[in-house]
């Protein structure tokens, strides 16, 4: 069933058991992003110390894809340097733009390669990217702060 390539077990698992959900009071940047076409919302608190992501927490509501994506994102990025995070974010964006032609790099994306199937559903790519856009924004703001 084609649908299963979208809703991988690991995605539904993150959806049901979201990681790092609940905002930490300590952050260098806080951003709020909305997917205007469906109303999904996310607030993301990012804390950066010495160029390393020491905490990344979030809250929000949305579909399984957007929620699972931000949950995995937090798992992936915490403890990474901003440069490492950037490499991961780029790799994820490329996967999302691949229209089903890429399997994703498990070395970089780990469990998030499960999103490969999402790239076949153009209507859902935005959902998967919601958290990543928020992260990008927060990272820029944090760097602005620390300069």
């Amino acid at each position, binding site marked *: 069933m084609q649908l299963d390539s979208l809703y991988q077990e690991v995605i539904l698992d993150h959806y049901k058991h979201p990681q790092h959900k609940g905002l930490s009071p300590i952050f260098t940047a806080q951003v709020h992003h909305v997917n205007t076409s*469906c*109303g999904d919302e996310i607030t993301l608190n990012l804390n950066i110390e010495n160029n390393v992501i020491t905490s990344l927490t979030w809250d929000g509501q*949305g579909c399984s894809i957007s929620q699972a994506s931000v949950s995995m994102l937090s798992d992936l990025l915490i403890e990474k340097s901003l440069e490492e995070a950037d490499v991961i974010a780029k790799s994820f964006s490329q996967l999302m733009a691949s229209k089903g032609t890429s399997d994703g790099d498990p070395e970089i994306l780990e469990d998030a390669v499960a999103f490969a199937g999402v790239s076949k559903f153009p209507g859902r790519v935005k959902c998967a990217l919601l958290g990543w856009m928020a992260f990008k924004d927060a990272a820029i703001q944090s760097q602005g702060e620390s300069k």
Partner: protein
Amino acid sequence: MSFSVANVRKDFPIFERTIRDGKRLVYLDSGATAQKPWAVINAESDFYSKHNAAVHRGAHQLAEEATDAYEGARAIVAEFIGANENEIIFTKNATESLNLVAYAMGNADKGNRFALNSDDSIVVTEMEHHANLIPWQQLAKRTGAALSWFKVTEGSRLDLSNINQVITSNTKVVAVTHQSNVLGTINPLEAIVARAHEVGAVVVLDACQSVPHMKVDVTELGVDFLAFSGHKAVGPTGVGVLWGKPELLDALPPFLTGGSMVSSVTMTDATWADVPQKFEAGVPNMAQAVGLGAALNYLSTIGMDAIREHEISLTEYALEKMLAIPGIRIIGPQNNVSRGATIAFTIEDIHPHDVGQFVDSQGVAVRTGHHCAWPLAKCMNVPATTRASFYLYNDEQDVDALVEAVVGAQKYFGRF
């Protein structure tokens, strides 16, 4: 007084295709846009392949034929809503029709009956589509007028209990939807029209969800302006309609300016042509207007009363079947009184986007989100809903397919 859905479906070529690896197309998204019968598709093609020319302008035979076709379409639209030809303005969609009225009012000079200032008020409702809300917000901002609104009750109806406080002697415009594109609620207009006219305000009716689905007669309704989109009435995309009372259209300043809407032009000034030309700047959407004419003729042949009856009985069936699904919450009237064939719902805590995706995998096309009525979603306290909307080509089998798919989604997302 009734028709065969099976026969109707044969008129619509899209039902010859399948969805998601061979599944039957169950199209329940007519609230967003309707499918098109061959009669409409061919009317556009014929215009292009046989009569295409710029209307009202050329001295040649094609221009005459194109003008006849275009003005013929205007006559069809007029008759369809019980109006006169010169009261029908072709726009690109209902959104433009509503913006036209709001912007043109904003263009009114002091002394013009439509001129607004900070003493005036504009009234909308909490269940408006963005297209009948934001243009008025913007007009209020530009003119300093106040914006107030009718609230929606728990029962998904307009709360008119405070009508005399909402529509006051300062009210100049009351903009209201005939049928909510989310709730399905059909609004009672008599009290609103009576009160608005009592204080000298005009009533602007968003008829996007009514004109395609029931007999609408502008004289009976008593409203002052009415807007709808062709594409929701089995017509082409790219064409909408604004109707207005002739004396009001006369008094209203123009909106878009350019060719074909002028009486005379100098380098610094211009005067305007008569209605409807005054409001139709540039080469019009001729093929689309002609296609809309064909669409309304198609609907008339089936019969608007028959369509309405069909939708009432389909809604009856759908409400019963859907309310039986455990965990479902219908956002809109639970009963079948004064309501159209649009059913929005949530199902447990499964996100509408996921519901939509699952039912799509079963060949069932619905819409998910806030349906361009964000304030309404907030006031119903749902971030988003799943919406099924029915039309003349849907039948009980389609309802069954929807119900089965929704139950399937429950199973699918509950699978661990």
